[in-house]
């Protein structure tokens, strides 16, 4: 993997800025908290735009903006930060969604106490998330991966809804425990490097060159996989997600669904497939099967949900199923599909959670029965809901279209029956989105309170707009995004094919 | 070899002691009476069969002191035997040892462990 060093520390700056602003929040007056956090995440977002502008797309596979700071010479642990095409996309997603979450929170009625901690947590999350996507040292990656847990634990536990304590507890235990397997995997990989080369290294670039006996490689693959499967989540490990997403405050759900889930899929692509290509090929059928099961099971679960937040949460699981299925098809189309679907799902799920949050702000319920027809009297909001839903459904022009379409193409390369299964999954996802739309728009409801609802405006509108625009951008100009990670995907494929 | 003599001596004295114990049983009269084997209480009737209760904690403290000082003596005995060969260094070391021992004594003194009439401390 090529490395392009940088003169200006963009990446570490974008990790440091939110962190610094969050520390600043501790000391400032109550009045300045919201403006300061807006400024902080805004600057980070602008910085990410700069990075996108400066990124050399002709060398997409290369790790650019690379920085390296030694933490521990003895074990060769380095804070090595950089962005390749894949990371870049995730980085953009992170800064965007974090900004959206903070913009949303400014006017969220639910967030009316312990403001300082709230914004502190969200800025910290942003910083850590950038760290996750930008680090190329496995230990540093792990540290950031774990760190994101802590602010999220607090976000769910403090500002969540009724079952928040239980959900926070469950969320933390699931992810923390599963990530211990990851830790074991990471150190084992480093140990293998040590026994082969005589020196420790946790650097992704060094570990790529490792080779393992087949059984051991599968073992390591599974160690990594457990952690990421819980995080993603894939079906047998998904039970934390409806609780966590369902009980988190809106902004928390947004960050959770849009970015935290992507950590799992991103890491599956980067580490599982990158570090253990042979095992990936060997385990492909199993992984695809898990993906398909996830799609279908989660879709069914989605349809039967009453609670709109849990509904969106389960739909996220089914989308993650698409991502993983596509990824483990291990061909060009599949990888493209999975990456673009990650980004797309980030937009749509965030947006859907905000829809849920907005309606809750009006009606103080998440129950679908009580939401019947609620959107009818808010035209702008209705437009947003419709756009988002169609995008999520995979209608052409919407962001998810490319993901689902390319997944089917990729599946067809193996067999038509697999493609058919994916298609069925697509039908299901269309079904539940339509079901939701029907409930929100078309059901008739007599009560007159709905008439007095004012339409969406101000900060909340802005946050929706910030998501809907990129959604459409993905839908209509996908090549802007494909260009970003084309190189990375080719690198992964080369790595895979080199073995065959 | 020397200890065989000692062992003999021990056995013989033990025998003498046992004989001494049984002399009264052998030669004494056996005329049991009801109150002759009552514990002596200056003629006052017994109100408590057992006298074996806990005793004053001062005795425990004495026991502790004995334990500690006698054990330190165990260190001094070997030293006394070889002091001739140890020279100045041996003197300094043992001086320190005795100094520390004196410290212990001073501590016990100061804390009142050496006084017979102990006051009950508030607990």
């Amino acid at each position, binding site marked *: 993997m090529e490395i392009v060093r940088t003169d200006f520390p963009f990446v570490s700056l974008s990790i440091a800025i939110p962190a610094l602003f969050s520390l600043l929040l501790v000391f400032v007056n109550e009045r300045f908290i919201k403006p300061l956090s807006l400024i902080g995440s805004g600057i980070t977002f602008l910085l990410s735009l700069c990075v996108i502008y400066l990124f050399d797309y002709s060398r997409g596979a290369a790790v650019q903006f690379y920085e390296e700071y030694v933490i521990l010479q003895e074990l060769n642990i380095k804070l090595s930060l950089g962005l390749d095409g894949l990371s870049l996309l995730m980085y953009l997603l992170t800064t965007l969604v974090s900004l959206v979450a903070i913009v949303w929170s400014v006017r969220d009625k639910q967030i009316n106490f312990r403001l300082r901690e709230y914004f502190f947590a969200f800025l910290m999350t942003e910083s850590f998330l950038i760290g996750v996507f930008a680090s190329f040292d496995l230990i540093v990656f*792990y540290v950031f991966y774990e760190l994101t847990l802590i602010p999220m634990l*607090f976000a769910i*536990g403090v500002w969540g809804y009724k079952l928040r304590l239980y959900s926070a507890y469950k969320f*933390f*235990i699931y992810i923390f*425990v599963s990530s211990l397997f990851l830790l*074991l995997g990471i*150190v084992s990989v480093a140990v293998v490097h040590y026994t082969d080369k005589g020196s420790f290294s946790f650097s992704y670039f060094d570990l790529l060159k490792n080779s393992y006996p087949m059984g051991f490689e599968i073992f390591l693959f599974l160690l990594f996989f457990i952690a990421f499967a819980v995080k993603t989540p894939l079906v047998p490990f998904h039970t934390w997600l409806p609780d966590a997403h369902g009980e988190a405050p809106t902004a928390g759900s947004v960050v959770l669904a849009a970015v935290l889930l992507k950590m799992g899929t991103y890491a599956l692509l980067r580490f599982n497939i990158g570090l253990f290509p042979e095992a990936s090929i060997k385990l492909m059928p199993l992984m695809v099967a898990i993906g398909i099961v996830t799609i279908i099971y989660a879709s069914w679960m989605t349809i039967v949900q009453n609670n709109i937040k849990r509904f969106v949460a389960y739909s996220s699981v089914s989308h993650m199923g698409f991502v993983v299925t596509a990824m483990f098809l291990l061909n060009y189309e599949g990888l493209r599909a999975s990456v673009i679907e990650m980004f797309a799902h980030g937009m749509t799920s965030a947006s859907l959670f905000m829809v849920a949050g907005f309606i809750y702000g009006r009606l103080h319920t998440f129950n679908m029965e009580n939401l019947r027809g609620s959107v009818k009297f808010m035209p702008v909001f209705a437009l947003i809901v419709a756009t988002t839903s169609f995008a999520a459904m995979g209608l052409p022009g919407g962001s998810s279209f490319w993901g689902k379409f390319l997944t089917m193409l990729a599946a067809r390369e193996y067999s038509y029956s697999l493609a058919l299964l994916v298609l069925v999954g697509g039908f299901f996802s269309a079904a539940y989105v339509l079901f939701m739309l029907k409930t929100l728009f078309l059901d008739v409801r007599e009560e007159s309170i709905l008439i007095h609802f004012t339409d969406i405006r101000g900060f909340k509108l802005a946050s929706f707009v910030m998501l809907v625009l990129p959604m459409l951008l993905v839908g209509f100009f996908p090549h802007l995004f494909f260009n970003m990670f084309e190189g990375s995907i080719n690198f992964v494929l080369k790595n895979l094919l080199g073995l065959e | 070899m020397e200890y065989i003599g000692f062992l003999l001596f021990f056995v013989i004295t033990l025998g003498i002691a046992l004989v001494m114990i049984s002399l009264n049983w052998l030669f004494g009269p056996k005329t049991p009476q009801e109150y002759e084997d009552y514990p002596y209480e200056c003629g006052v009737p017994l109100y408590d069969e057992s006298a074996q209760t806990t005793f004053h904690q001062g005795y425990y403290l004495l026991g502790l002191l004995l334990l500690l000082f006698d054990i330190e003596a165990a260190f001094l005995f070997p030293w006394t035997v070889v002091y001739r060969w140890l020279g100045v260094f041996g003197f300094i070391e043992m001086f320190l040892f005795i100094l520390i021992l004196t410290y212990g004594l001073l*501590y016990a003194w100061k804390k009142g462990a050496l006084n017979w009439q102990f006051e009950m401390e508030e607990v």
Partner: protein
Amino acid sequence: MDIGQLVGDIRIPRLELFLPELIVLITAFMLFTLDLVLSTRLKRVVLPSLSAIGYVLALMSVGITIQFQGNTFYGTFTNDYLGILVKVFVLIITLTVLAFSYKYYEAKNSFYGEFYYMLAFTLLGAMILASSYNLIIIYVSLELVSIGFYILTALLRGSFISKEGAFKYLILGGLSIALASYGAVFMYIYSGSIDLRGILSYSGQDYHYLILGLVLFLIGFAIKIGAVPFHFWLPDAYQGAPTPVTALMASVGKLVFFIPVVRIMPLIQDKFSVAWMLTVGVIAAATMLYGNLVALVQRDIKRLLAYSSIAHSGYILAAVAVTKEIGLKAVIYFLLVYTVMAAGSFFVVAMLERAEGWNNEIREFSGLRFSLPYLAFSFLVYMFALLGVPPTVGFVGKALVFMALSFDGLWWLAFIMILSTAISTGYYVRLIVLMYMKDREKNVTIMGKSYAELVSLVFLTLLTVALAVVPGVIWQLLSPAASMLFVR
């Protein structure tokens, strides 16, 4: 036999190697003397400050001794990197204990001058124990530390459980020492030497005595560190002791009781690698599982932390099972940083105990964040550290243990460790949830905070994070310490 020859030539010891211990010794005697002569009012000022000055001087002199390394006192005292590293931590923790104890005992209305010099003697024992291979010296310093702990445990006016804890500790501690010294007999028979290096590098034909001796010796130490079939005393002693002393026992005690084992670990592994791996592995597994499972159902915070301490013994033992150099590093690192975490968490409890109507029950932590935000925050940091969440030292310790286990392919142990960590998540996170996410049941206020304890708490909290984020400082000493011990 000529006695003159037996006595041999007398050499003046290299006192510069012994400097920190010497300073602590002198401090202890000065404290002792002053305790006898001063009035109570003066004692309250003089004793703590004198101890603090003594320990700081000792800490500085440890820095000096880094350049003089070697053996002295006829080879019975060894000053090496490991010893220096341990001494630094032991001194730091003892200083913080000093800081916390003052107000604690004041609140409990239990001022004893004895506390200060027993602390000094315990410290002295700990420092010597950390730097010797000689069985006699190990035995004597072990007793010094233990007796110090027994007395410190019992020194709490008006508390029956403190005496009860001290008695239980005494009995099991005495048993452990008896077992260890009985083991020493057999090792001595095997080799005719009382130097552990000599014993283990001696190549005799008949291993039976060595094995018997080692087993007994190690069981003795297993009791001391609270490894599982021998842990009964630990929760009671920890709960009964005055909380600053509990902090001392959990940190310094655990650290120094491990050190002789750490010193001989590579030598034993050289001889019996497979058996060692298996036995220690099984004990480690049992210890961590048991500690965490029982901690889960505790209602008393000190007992909970005590069981967590047992569990941590298990984690450290897991690394002891490893036969590679990294295992040694993991053990030493984890031990050192565990002192910081354990001491810190107990100190928080010590401060809370001064609050009105505080019963050390876990539910009393509800909403602590609202009453005492800074204290709650530092407790949060310790909980994360004990749990092993980055970027705290606990995480680095666990990662190192995993690494060591992976080196030797002890996967089953690694999985048990993951399982037990999973169990431990239950109670650590419960505390966090209680403190930060529940509403408070009552207002907790602590009377009279002293600057010394605030500074110490901040220092320990920072250390918990800093030693993980800037690990170079500790590794500079840790790495040569482990390499020097590692024979192959």
